[in-house]
């Protein structure tokens, strides 16, 4: 029972961390947080990894509940996966905090930060291991509150308070909906623990199924940042400290996905096609809206926040495809789609944490998050630049980094819709595929802009020109995340079986056989592989070098039929090897050809101007302006100022233009919602006229109503 030990150790460490944090001096708190946080994260990783790989779920009863049933916790493979991701993100973030939290030393209480930090860590883990409705909801609330407090850590700033408040309000709304969903299930099952809910899940009526789905999907969707309830996310990220932002995007958004997957994949079987279609469409729209606003955003953390919405949208779209394939009776394809979704979620946690830590480092050293005021940092902060570059390459889905493998798999899974029968569904898939492809293109634009404007070129502000490299305590975690991101991309053939193992207990067949067959050596027994399929590959010469190339490196999809068995094949592992070889050969050739030449370094050619000033170089706004212009109908920025000042009729001294971006979802959802609420509240406000006699009358009327009602109950 290693998991149980590890979990226990973990909680002990969290408690210890919180207690020690209260008593330690303010200056020592960051280091304390780093050390104990890292240890706790390690414990969490051990627990999660063991659960995921060793396939030994554990369950435990804790205290009995007053309403019946007991408090249950447990760690199955799915939870193990999420716990592993949690630990993997908390580890570098904790180490990063050692250096980063110094900036709050004199302004805010680091003691409260430490306490809240461990509280958040513990509550997140508790959510993942909760196995009954009551504990789930309780820990979910704890998690919401601690994350709100941490996001709102710099509470002295007005906009931080508003952003945090919106996060809390929307979060509570989502929690309410999710709670309703779980309670509906619980009332149908007659008990509170998940195993009972699962057993009863099969016998629900379609209307009940739809209600549970809608409530849980949109309720957990608030936490995951899906349209139309993502308004809190782009506001919360920029105001939170960088390490909290990393946790927010890397871990807390995943909990929304965890909720959706737990309810709709584990407790209920997705056999209603409509639910899958809704999931798919909402996912695609979130992805597109997210990346569109990310491309036109200049605040680094705001941009990354919108990008998180995009990535969660892609994950949801993968989930939706999986639901649809399950409902259509194609379990193998469903497995592929779900594996792709979880793969993308894992990748996103790693590289988004990396990017947020990078943005935090830049903010720490260059003093600003505005891309229009950064620049030239690659010379002053080379390691940060390198790690940020790896993060950008990953998130833009560039081969061979992690984002490529998962996004490619997701798109391929969507393409498999060709094997479905219903034309309407196929059209939906086609449109969503197009949307995701457009999203991928915009993602490349967005992160080229982010890296180029932030790190390349000339420094656009004095502080950026004098930034120094970050301390090792901040660089090492970023480096570790970068390496992890690279590895996750280069060995998909190990990640996919792990993930499909995580899905297996939920009743899904193994996607491993479909995606990562060991076929190089024909002697091996290929379970479930038709002989002509393997032969096809051998005809292509796949067995060449089978003694040198180890095991499985290819990700392959085959239909198993006789004609055209192979649908797609990809290998980042072998690709990396070939890439390295090619680069090596090129370098050798170049070195031989030019060994006599010397390199002369000159300033960039700028048309012969006497001096190139930073304000003459492209800004992030300029770079993304074409996107702004093309999608103006969606973006609809609001013109705040457009004036000209002149002196003496023909001489202008100032031209002022400023625009405020408005979010599409805000315009449609938030503003509509607030207006409705205001109207309703105004209507109710008529009751509050201040006359005591009327209030007494209200009390009497209420009493009467209850007396009458009690007669009927």
């Amino acid at each position, binding site marked *: 029972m290693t998991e149980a030990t590890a979990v226990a150790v973990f909680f002990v460490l969290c408690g210890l961390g919180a207690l020690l944090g209260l008593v330690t001096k303010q200056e020592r708190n960051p280091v304390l947080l780093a050390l104990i946080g890292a240890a706790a994260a390690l414990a969490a990783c051990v627990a999660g990894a063991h659960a995921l790989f060793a396939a030994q779920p554990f369950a435990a009863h804790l205290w009995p509940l007053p309403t019946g049933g007991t408090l249950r916790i447990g760690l199955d493979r799915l939870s193990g996966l999420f716990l592993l991701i949690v630990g993997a993100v908390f580890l570098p973030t904790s180490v990063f905090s050692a250096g980063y939290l110094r900036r709050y030393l004199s302004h805010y209480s680091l003691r409260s930060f430490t306490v809240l930090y461990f509280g958040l860590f513990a509550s997140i883990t508790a959510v993942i291991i909760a196995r009954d409705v009551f504990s789930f909801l309780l820990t979910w609330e704890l998690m919401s509150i601690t994350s709100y407090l941490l996001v709102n850590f710099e509470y002295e700033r007005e906009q931080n308070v508003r952003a945090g408040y919106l996060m809390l309000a929307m979060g509570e709304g989502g929690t309410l909906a999710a709670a309703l969903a779980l309670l509906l299930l619980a009332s149908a099952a007659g008990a509170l623990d998940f195993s009972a809910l699962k057993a009863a899940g099969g016998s629900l009526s379609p209307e009940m199924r739809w209600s549970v789905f809608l409530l849980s999907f949109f309720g957990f969707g608030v936490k995951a940042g899906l349209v139309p309830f993502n308004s809190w996310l782009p506001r919360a990220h920029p105001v939170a400290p960088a390490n909290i932002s990393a946790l927010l995007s890397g871990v807390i958004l995943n909990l929304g996905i965890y909720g959706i997957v737990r309810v709709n994949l584990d407790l209920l079987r997705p056999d209603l096609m409509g639910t899958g279609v809704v999931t798919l469409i909402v996912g695609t729209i979130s992805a597109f809206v997210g990346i569109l606003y990310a491309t036109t955003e200049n605040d680094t953390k705001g941009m990354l926040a919108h990008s998180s919405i995009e990535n969660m949208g892609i994950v949801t779209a993968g989930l939706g495809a999986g639901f649809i394939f399950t409902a259509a009776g194609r379990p193998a394809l469903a497995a592929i789609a779900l594996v792709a979704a979880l793969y993308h979620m894992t990748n996103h946690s790693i590289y988004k944490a990396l990017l947020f830590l990078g943005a935090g480092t830049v903010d720490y050293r260059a003093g600003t998050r505005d891309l229009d005021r950064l620049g030239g940092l690659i010379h002053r902060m080379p390691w940060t630049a390198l790690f940020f570059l790896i993060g950008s390459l990953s998130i833009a889905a560039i081969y061979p980094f992690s984002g490529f493998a998962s996004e490619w798999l997701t798109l391929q899974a969507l393409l498999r819709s060709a094997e479905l029968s219903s034309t309407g569904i196929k059209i939906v898939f086609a449109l969503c595929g197009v949307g995701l492809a457009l999203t991928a293109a915009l993602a490349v634009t967005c992160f080229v802009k982010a890296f180029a404007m932030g790190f390349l070129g000339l420094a656009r502000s004095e502080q950026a020109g004098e930034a120094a490299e970050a301390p090792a305590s901040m660089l090492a975690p970023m480096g570790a995340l970068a390496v992890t991101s690279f590895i996750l991309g280069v060995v998909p053939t190990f990640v996919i079986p792990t993930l499909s193992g995580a899905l297996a207990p939920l009743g899904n067949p193994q996607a491993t056989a479909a995606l990562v067959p060991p076929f190089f050596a024909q002697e091996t027994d290929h379970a479930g592989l038709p002989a002509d399929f393997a032969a096809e590959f051998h005809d292509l010469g796949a067995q060449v070098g089978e003694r040198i190339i180890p095991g499985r490196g290819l990700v392959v999809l085959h239909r198993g039929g006789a004609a055209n068995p192979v649908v797609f094949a990809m290998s980042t592992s072998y690709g990396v090897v070939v890439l390295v070889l090619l680069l090596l050969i090129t370098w050798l050739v170049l070195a031989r050809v030019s060994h006599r030449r*010397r390199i*002369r370094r*000159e300033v960039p*050619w700028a048309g*012969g*101007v*006497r001096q190139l000033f930073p304000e003459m170089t492209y800004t992030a706004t300029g770079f993304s302006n074409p996107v702004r212009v093309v999608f103006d109908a969606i973006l609809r920025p609001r013109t705040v100022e457009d004036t000209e000042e002149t002196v003496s009729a023909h001489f202008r001294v100032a031209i002022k233009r400023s625009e405020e971006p408005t979010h599409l979802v805000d315009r449609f959802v938030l503003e509509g919602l607030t207006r409705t609420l205001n109207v309703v509240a105004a209507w109710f406000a008529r009751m509050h006229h201040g006359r005591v006699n009327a209030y007494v009358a209200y009390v009497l009327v209420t009493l009467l109503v209850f007396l009458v009602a009690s007669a009927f109950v």
Partner: protein
Amino acid sequence: MANWVFSGLRMGVKTTRYPRRADETPGVTPGLPLGRSLTGGEGREVVARCPTGALMTDGDNITIDYRRCVHCFRCARGASDPLPWQGGYQWARAAAPPAQRRQVGVAAEEERTPGQPLGTAFARSLHVRVVDAGDCGACLREVKQLSNPYYNLHRLGFFITPTPRQADVLLVVGPGTDQMRTALEKAYAAMPTPRRVLAVGACALSGGVFGPSFMCSDGIGSIIPVDAEVPGNPPPPLAILHGLLLLAGRAGERREEEGPT
């Protein structure tokens, strides 16, 4: 919609036969004066008429420094004993060796004799960056004519690049004004080796009628090292082509004693 393809095809071939054969179409060159021997006192009057001092007496002969000729035609019109003028356009020659020439950004291994061609690799693929150092517009216009169908420098493998980073030859026109000095130096410094500089026009060679003054140099050779020179005011496109062919190693130089060919 007009049919440009047909109308283009109907135009036929206009390209000159140069450098394979000489081009003797009227109007293709203004020509240059020829030196001759002095015939008593009248000869000297012609020498004094030259406003830029291009005509000199050397013993019994009138010699001409073509770098200074600004095509004012005073030695041909209105003089009692005018100099003969001849057409032709193969006027390019290597620049004088660097006595006081500035070597801007030239490393030791880049030392080269002026006029030394770039090498066979560049003979049929030469990239030219044109820099205007204050020219009057006529030289620049003649350079622009190089891309028209009559001269079509692309058929020789010569191209005009938008950036000096990809240029083999820097073609400079104009007398090298003071305010263009930095830009010219930067353009030269931005060129990767091997590189050559072709100075085109009387202004670029000797300052023309403008220099030297507080605003103009006496030829761009005092700002950047010059490899080959094309005299004329302005030199016709065929002469500029000759200069480029010289640097590409595909044309012989004008021999001094023969005058313009």
